[in-house]
């Protein structure tokens, strides 16, 4: 018995060893990416959390721990919340206008219109440009003697010329337009990918049943894109709230605090005021806010499903 059972135990042991080895082998495939993630994402986050409890000035490593003081200042700072408010306006405008335009463009280019492939490429050009470059281009467009005012004058709408970036009434919206112009291509490509995943026979069946184009959009396209929509919305909210390049290039948060946004405030706190501790606290507060927002959005969409 004993002699006969020995080889089978050995075999089991051997297969277990093989399994362990396979598991380790799999781990080695993941390990480089995991290490890079730890080094370039996880450790900086941990370091930021650590700095947020200090008065670190960005250079001198002899800093003191200040407890929750930075967080208290961040939460009670009205200017910070104004900046968050501006970020929310950017996000809302992007959700409503940018994503609607992106959806319509993707529906249009998904159909067999002439040159649809060309348009797909054209619409995806802005997102691959540098945000700073786009910001400077739009700054030039908005200048008092810039392209936009020139165009308005040329088409007989001279009375509508305006100091777009220098006025508190329009600065925020002017920056939002430039940011949406750049962002629309990103949403467009995601919607297009989603559209191409919808089975064609659904449309054919609907068309046989006499559904109009609008009805097809309403009852087939939009419901089928729900998951894509969730993803696009989350990315839009994160992108719009985290806007920096456009504001930096176009207004530096001005006039006054009209276009001040959270990322610019964090930047200023760190690099102008040399207050890395405070900047870290703002970053953590902001990061938590974005995380909660994404979770809410995700939960809401799951509920709908």
């Amino acid at each position, binding site marked *: 018995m004993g002699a006969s059972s020995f080889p089978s135990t050995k075999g089991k042991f051997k297969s277990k060893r093989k399994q362990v*080895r396979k598991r*380790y*082998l799999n781990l*080695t*495939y993941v*390990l*480089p990416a995991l*290490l*890079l993630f730890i*080094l*370039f994402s996880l450790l900086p986050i941990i370091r930021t959390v650590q700095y947020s409890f200090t008065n670190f*000035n*960005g*250079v*001198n*490593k*002899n800093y003191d721990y200040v407890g929750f003081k930075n967080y208290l*200042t961040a939460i009670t700072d009205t200017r910070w919340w104004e900046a968050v408010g501006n970020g929310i306006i950017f996000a809302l405008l992007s959700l409503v206008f940018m994503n609607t335009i992106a959806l319509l463009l993707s529906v249009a280019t998904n159909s067999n219109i002439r040159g649809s492939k060309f348009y797909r490429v054209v619409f995806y050009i802005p997102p691959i440009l540098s945000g700073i470059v786009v910001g400077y281009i739009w700054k030039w467009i908005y*200048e*008092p*003697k810039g392209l936009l005012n020139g165009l308005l004058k040329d088409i007989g709408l001279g009375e509508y010329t305006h*100091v777009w*970036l*220098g*006025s*508190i009434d329009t*600065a925020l919206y002017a920056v939002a337009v430039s940011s949406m112009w750049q962002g629309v291509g990103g949403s467009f490509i995601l919607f297009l990918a989603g559209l191409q995943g919808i089975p064609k026979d659904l449309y054919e069946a609907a068309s046989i049943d006499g559904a109009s184009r609008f009805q097809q959009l309403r009852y087939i396209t939009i419901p089928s894109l729900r998951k894509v929509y969730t993803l696009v919305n989350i990315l839009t909210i994160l992108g719009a709230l985290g806007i920096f390049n456009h504001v930096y290039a*176009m*207004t*530096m*948060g*001005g*006039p*006054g*605090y009209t276009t001040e946004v959270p990322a610019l405030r964090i930047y*200023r706190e760190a*690099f*102008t*005021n*040399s*207050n890395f501790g405070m900047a870290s606290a703002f970053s953590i507060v902001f990061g938590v806010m974005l995380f909660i927002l994404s979770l809410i959005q995700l939960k809401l969409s799951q509920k709908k499903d």
Partner: protein
Amino acid sequence: MIQDHRVKWRMFILSIIMLIALTGCSSNSKDTTSNDKNMTQTNDQTDVTNKKDVKLVFWHYLNDRDDLLKEMASDFEQKTGIKVDVQLFGGDGFKQKIMASAQNNALPDVMTFAGGAGDLGQLVEAGNVMELSDMKDMFDKFPSTILKTFTFDNNNIFGVKKFGTYAIPMDTNNMQFVYNTKLFEKVGITSAPTTWDELLTDVDRLKAAGIVPFATGIGSWVAGSMAAPYEVAYLGEEKLVNVKKGDESLVDSGYLKVLQRFEDLYKHGAYAEGIATMDLPAAEQMFVNEEVAMIFDGSWAIGVFNQMNPNFTHYDVFQPPKPADAAYDVKIPGGIGVPLVIDNHTKNKEAAMQFVRFLVEKEQQQKYASKSFNLPANIEAATSESGMTPALHNFSLGMNHIIENGGSYPDPSVETVLQKGIQLIAIGQSTPDKVLKEMDVELQKALKEKK
């Protein structure tokens, strides 16, 4: 068996890749910096006497002077055999680059520092920059007030405890009003205004003739610099220092009048459209295009104007005009334009000092002034007038009226509130009263936090 062998090999190769990645990522950036400086440093453990092996790394942010500095570095190499790798990092991010590099002891041998005395003080305290008492023999070549800017003694307001001088000036600068002489003449103004009322009258005349009177970089840091002459004129330097320190009340100090001057300009329609978010390069472009008659700018602007349009030369300079109700003389912001700083950890200390000495020698300074249109720091070069345009000479005269001690707020956030407030006053969206109250709130907050 063969499969086992393959698996082992795969694991071995992966381990090697990970090891390389880890070594690359975790080692001190000073070791990983790919610039030639560190290569030189490791090869140059012996000493700097073998100068042919020494290669200094020099960082600067002066876009318009890159070629000139490279030329000077080449002259230096011919003279001494020491190579200098001149590296340009233009733009606003230079200060951030310095701060980030300082954290990892990865600063170059020599650099032009970007930032104020408080910023340099942080590097001093962290042990990143070299104290320059070994170059004491050079100090009397510069105006003493200029050298003081980056000298920390026991009275320094930045809390720096490592006393000493940490920067040598490569050039000096100051900020004044620059005006287009032809546009002034066109409306019958024959001389620059000397009082605030005269300035407002000139603004009215220019405006009436359809000429935009004034532009500057109010959307950026310039707002604070433009306020500085009037801070001194209304408060005096001593009171200003006390107010900024929080020893005297800001609200009752008379600071309101400083802000009212910006409101005057708004009420007289002086500002160009888009002033609230305008940066200095945009204002300079308008001035060179003759779209605006006056600009508040620094002495470096002459080089900028020349670069934008070499044929545009009909402009001159005047000091900020004094308001009738100001108790003190108007003084202007200025001092070290470009401070030269040496890395405290450099292995090429002697060579670095030799290079700095070379850059501030009379001959080099004259060459620098004539080619870059900037005010030389070396007194001998500055007084020789060699190669200076009339406007630059007038700027150089302004060096006698520099604000010696304008004080410093306990936190730069107060300056930000001032800057943002001026932006809003300039477009009629805020009042001096309101801005002053906001500044006071920020100052009290900063003082409380400091305590």
